[in-house]
């Protein structure tokens, strides 16, 4: 019998070896695949809430935009709750962190760092286990400047719209604010019923506060797009002094329609010709429609693409083919049609040259265009997160370098365009953006929204813009639906003063 008993022993060792192998498979080899299944959501959320999630800080490293604080309810199964001290001021940028509605904004984009699960944290996590320290997520250091963000909120006041400020030298987002916004805290903390109520409120509010006007919506850019048309012209060798015919109306080929200047006015007092610089300063539509048609579709589309505008095929679909300019948050990059679209459709090309037809953009993209012009023709992708730091030691774990996106125009063209934009503020449609002691470059825009709706008012700018000066801030503003002055609103009147206040706040 002893031989059988020994064999039985071997059989038991073999059976247990199969158990060990399966344990290793489920707990180590396939562990991540199994644990990350959606059906394991309950455990994932509880594990997430057991970690002290990292802070989101402004660039000054003091201003806290989002942080985890111990749950005041000791009986709760969630040990920390998320707090957003400034409420809706940074809400669309931080996003919410909700156990019901998931994550958005930086809370989503930076989640592996905030939760401490990114590969960069492996050493720290092991140390924490050995020392028995509670696991802590990393700190996300943004590029946001609190005084700029606050100035945007103050300047916009009750007006619906958005403001974006970019550092032209590296693409840093200094501020980005839309009205209406939302406070992420009620969506992120509280009882299930409270969260559901907050969600109902924010999703049923008019003007969709969950979608940021600053970078997640698209609008007709109107005359602000003349910065792009002028870039194409300068790159082609047609300078600011080149003369263009100046009729009262421009008949569009192949249609019954015509293009007129703003308010059906006469450009340059009705002179026979006008220079591009002059037409730019007074924002005349007729000469710029002529410039666009003269440049032809290829050059216009090429210039727009160099600025990161996404190619569209409006006859097929209005959707953007592929994302061009990278950004940490989901955003809508500007649209400009592919040159094919303008074949036998010169009217569309003329309208596109003055920012109408199927040209679309938003304040973030427009600010990036202004920043590229101010920065001597080098365009940076927007950077919202500068660094990730260890919450306990303060050491830098990861740095996000500025990301050079393209060179849409030469330094020479950029310098000429800068002078043209300075003249807009100094003596043209953008005079409301003048700042004592600082040279400001800008361009106004007033884009019709439809026949019976007040227009959207635009302003895009950068400063300081004196000869030889390096601009430190580029600001783009949109005020929706005419703001508080309705049909009479223009970019120069209502948007330019907002840009001025933001630039003043930053340049001090």
């Amino acid at each position: 019998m002893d031989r059988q008993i020994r064999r039985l022993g071997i059989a038991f060792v073999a059976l247990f070896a199969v158990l060990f192998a399966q344990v290793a498979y489920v707990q180590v080899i396939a562990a991540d695949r199994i644990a990350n299944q959606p059906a394991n959501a309950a455990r994932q959320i509880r594990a997430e809430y057991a970690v002290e999630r990292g802070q989101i800080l402004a660039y000054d490293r003091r201003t806290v935009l989002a942080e985890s604080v111990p749950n005041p309810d000791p009986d709760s199964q969630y040990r920390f709750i998320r707090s957003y001290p400034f409420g809706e001021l940074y809400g669309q940028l931080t996003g919410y962190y909700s156990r019901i509605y998931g994550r958005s904004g930086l809370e989503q984009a930076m989640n592996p760092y905030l939760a401490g699960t990114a590969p960069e944290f492996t050493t720290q996590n092991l140390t924490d286990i050995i020392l028995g320290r509670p696991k802590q997520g990393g700190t996300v250091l943004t590029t946001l400047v609190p005084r700029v963000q606050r100035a945007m909120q103050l300047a916009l006041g009750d007006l619906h719209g958005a403001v974006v400020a970019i550092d032209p030298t590296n693409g840093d987002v200094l501020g980005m604010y839309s009205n209406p916004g939302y406070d992420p805290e009620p969506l992120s903390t509280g009882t299930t019923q409270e969260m559901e109520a907050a969600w109902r409120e924010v999703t049923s509010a008019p003007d969709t506060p969950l979608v940021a006007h600053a970078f997640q919506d698209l609008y007709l850019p109107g005359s602000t797009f003349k910065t792009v048309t002028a870039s194409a012209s300068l790159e082609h060798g047609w300078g600011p002094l080149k003369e263009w015919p100046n009729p009262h109306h421009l008949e569009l080929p192949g249609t019954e329609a015509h293009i007129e200047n703003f308010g059906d006015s006469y450009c340059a007092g009705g002179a026979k010709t006008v220079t591009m610089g002059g037409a730019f300063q007074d924002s005349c539509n007729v000469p710029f429609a002529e410039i666009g048609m003269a440049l032809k579709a290829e050059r216009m589309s090429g210039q727009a693409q160099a600025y990161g505008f996404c190619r569209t095929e409006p006859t097929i679909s209005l959707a953007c083919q592929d994302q061009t300019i990278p950004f940490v948050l989901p955003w809508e990059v500007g649209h400009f049609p592919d040159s094919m679209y303008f074949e036998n459709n010169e009217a569309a090309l003329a309208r596109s040259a003055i920012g109408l037809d199927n040209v679309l953009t938003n304040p973030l993209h427009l600010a990036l265009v202004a920043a590229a012009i101010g920065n001597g023709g080098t365009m940076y992708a927007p950077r919202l997160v500068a660094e990730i730091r260890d919450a306990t030691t303060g050491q830098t774990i990861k740095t996000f370098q500025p990301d050079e996106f393209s060179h849409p125009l030469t330094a020479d063209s950029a310098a000429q365009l800068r002078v043209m934009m300075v003249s807009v503020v100094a003596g043209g449609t953008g005079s409301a953006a003048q700042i004592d002691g600082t040279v400001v470059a800008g361009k106004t825009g007033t884009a019709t929204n439809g026949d019976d709706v007040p227009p959207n008012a635009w302003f895009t700018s950068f400063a300081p813009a004196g000869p030889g000066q390096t601009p430190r801030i580029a600001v783009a503003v949109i005020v929706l639906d005419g703001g508080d002055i309705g049909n009479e609103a223009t970019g120069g009147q209502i948007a330019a003063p907002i840009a001025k206040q933001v630039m003043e706040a930053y340049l001090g």
Partner: protein
Amino acid sequence: MSAAVAASGAAASPRRRPRLARTGLAAVLLAVVASVLAYALQAMGLSGERPDNLVAYGIAFGCLSLAGWFAIRRTARAADPVLYPTAILLSGLGLAMLFRIMTANGAPEVARYQAVWLAIGLVCLVVTLFVLRDIRQLDAYTYTIGLAGLILLLLPVVPGIGTEINGAKLWIDLGFLSFQPAEPGRILIVIFLASYLSQRRELLAAGVGRLGLPRPKDLGPLLLAWGVALAVLFLERDMGASLLLFGVFIVMMWVATGRWSYLVLGLLLFAIGAFVGYLAFSHVQVRVDSWLHAMDPKLVADEGYQLSQGWFALASGGTVGTGLGLGSPTLIPYVGSDFILAAFGEELGMLGVAAVLLLYLVLVGRGLRIAVERHDGFEKLLAVGLTTVLGLQVFVIAAGVLRLIPLTGVPLPLVSYGGTSRVATAVILALLLRTSAGPWLRARRDRRGTTEAAKEAS
């Protein structure tokens, strides 16, 4: 001559035993420390604070464990020194996990009942050793024990006392007490088989013909056991008990006769039974389907919920686990009974599960070692049978939780929630200890006899 043999045997063991006894005592103390530490850690993990009753818990657990150890030393001096400390460690870890689970479920009193049951099990272990002074006493009541075992196995079917819980009739309710008679029934059947097979093994082995097949008339016991196992499966719908019963039977048949044909025939009959069971019973089909497709999106929140949550717990634990009290094992239904291994997996990781399984492997190894060391056929077969019941039960539930085989609801011995199981496992351990130690009184008489013989010789 016989006195000289006895004298040399008596002289050999005292030299070896005291050292083993000291090591065993140290092992018991270590098991107590580890168990109390686990209790403290789970409470700290849950609430962040040291439990108020930690000292009282430690003293109570330590005193009971040591009392058990000294009682074993008193009644079964030469008993295997590894079995008891291993069992204490498994019980202590299990109890800590039950406190953790039941506290999180808002019913810590359930864990306290289990602590009481653990103490009752310990008392049963000691009482068994006191009452049963010679294991061969059991060999005298072959058919009485066999009949009693059969009655216990089939008792839940009797109308009026059988209670159906979760689709299986495992329980009998005596009004003042309800328990699962399959657990003690299994032990009695093993004793019966050890006794019966040790008497008949020569005949059964010799009866195997040239083709390696037993004679038809020797197939009787095999078919009878198969019938009982099927009856348990069909009438009580208890897949786990049926599987264990038949598994133990064919293992003991094979060990007793040394004939592979019994193993092959047994497995064949098992396959037929399993297939018929699958065709005949919807609850068996559900078990198999939820085993195969637990992670399927259609079943994951439904029939496959328990199995998939078990896997999620194991996978979330990873290599080292979340730490005691820091995971979410209470998401698994019946985590305290069937799925307690998954709770270990989540909070102590792969290393924790491997450690628990290794402890069981140690128990199995010591049990088989006892079987090899004994010279009497009944004692050998009894040790093999009891060890197989224990080892097979661990495998069946662990493999079920790990989704290697369909889940059958049997408790993890010593660790899971369940009073009947605790007492039954304590009795199994007592029988193994008694087998390894040899008879109590006989040893005394022998010693006295030896000295008398020595006196006479002088």
